[in-house]
């Protein structure tokens, strides 16, 4: 039981921290001048030279290995609904780490999505 809770925490916190680092890196990179292949390649080149991007990748990899471990212990119909909590954790991170404004409507949407994903994944 303890190892499941620990792995879930690593899964949720790892993916959230990783995605927040990548978001921060992408905001620093700035948007592509236009949505054409060449401009997107240049954009990608700028993005991979950003340290925050490379801080995010190992965190997401860690989260992925934690998911694999969880799936080897518990059924998928338990693991994915539990991981839906990451929608709420991610929104908290967006609000307090990235400084995004999360309106009441956005919070309500996030809670509905979280509950919905949990129900869909439970089958």
């Amino acid at each position, binding site marked *: 039981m303890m190892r499941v809770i620990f792995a879930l925490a690593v899964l949720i916190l790892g993916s959230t921290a990783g995605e927040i680092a990548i978001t921060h890196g992408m905001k620093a990179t700035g*948007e592509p*001048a236009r949505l054409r292949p060449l401009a997107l390649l240049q954009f990608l080149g700028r993005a991979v030279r950003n340290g925050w991007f490379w801080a995010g990748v190992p965190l997401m990899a860690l989260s992925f290995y934690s998911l694999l471990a969880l799936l080897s212990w518990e059924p998928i119909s338990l693991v994915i609904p539990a991981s839906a909590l990451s929608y709420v954790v991610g929104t908290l991170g967006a609000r307090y780490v*990235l400084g*995004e*404004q999360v309106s009441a409507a956005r919070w309500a*949407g*996030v809670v*509905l*999505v979280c509950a919905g994903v949990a129900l*869909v994944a439970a089958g």
Partner: protein
Amino acid sequence: MASERRLRIKTLVMVLAMVVCANAGDLLLKRGMSQIGAVQLTASGLAQAFRLTVASGTIWVAILFLSGFMLSYMTVLSWADYSYVMPAGAFGYALLTLLAVVFLHESVSPRRWVGVVLICAGVLLVGQTKPRTTAVTSEALA
């Protein structure tokens, strides 16, 4: 206000590209791996699985779609809020259920339908909010 509308449209297009690429990639990866069969967790089993995966066209197309997902995800996060993109991307779960019903004729439990309705309502609510609430650093340069 025209730029506000443009921002909303390009964000929606990118989120849609994300969802389509992620779903297509996952489905193709699953198909490719089931063609290969269960992987034995021994040195020779893993080497065998590696040889089969790099030789599989299906796996390569899956990787192409998953790369497309990563690119569209990174692109949309360069201008839109994480707290906007993340819940909006959950639309993929609802879409996957609808595709399973229409094309695979799978039966779906009432509980799962309730989940689909909640996801759609939640995505619509998040979609109403402003895609970007933090300071713009790059648009002045563009």
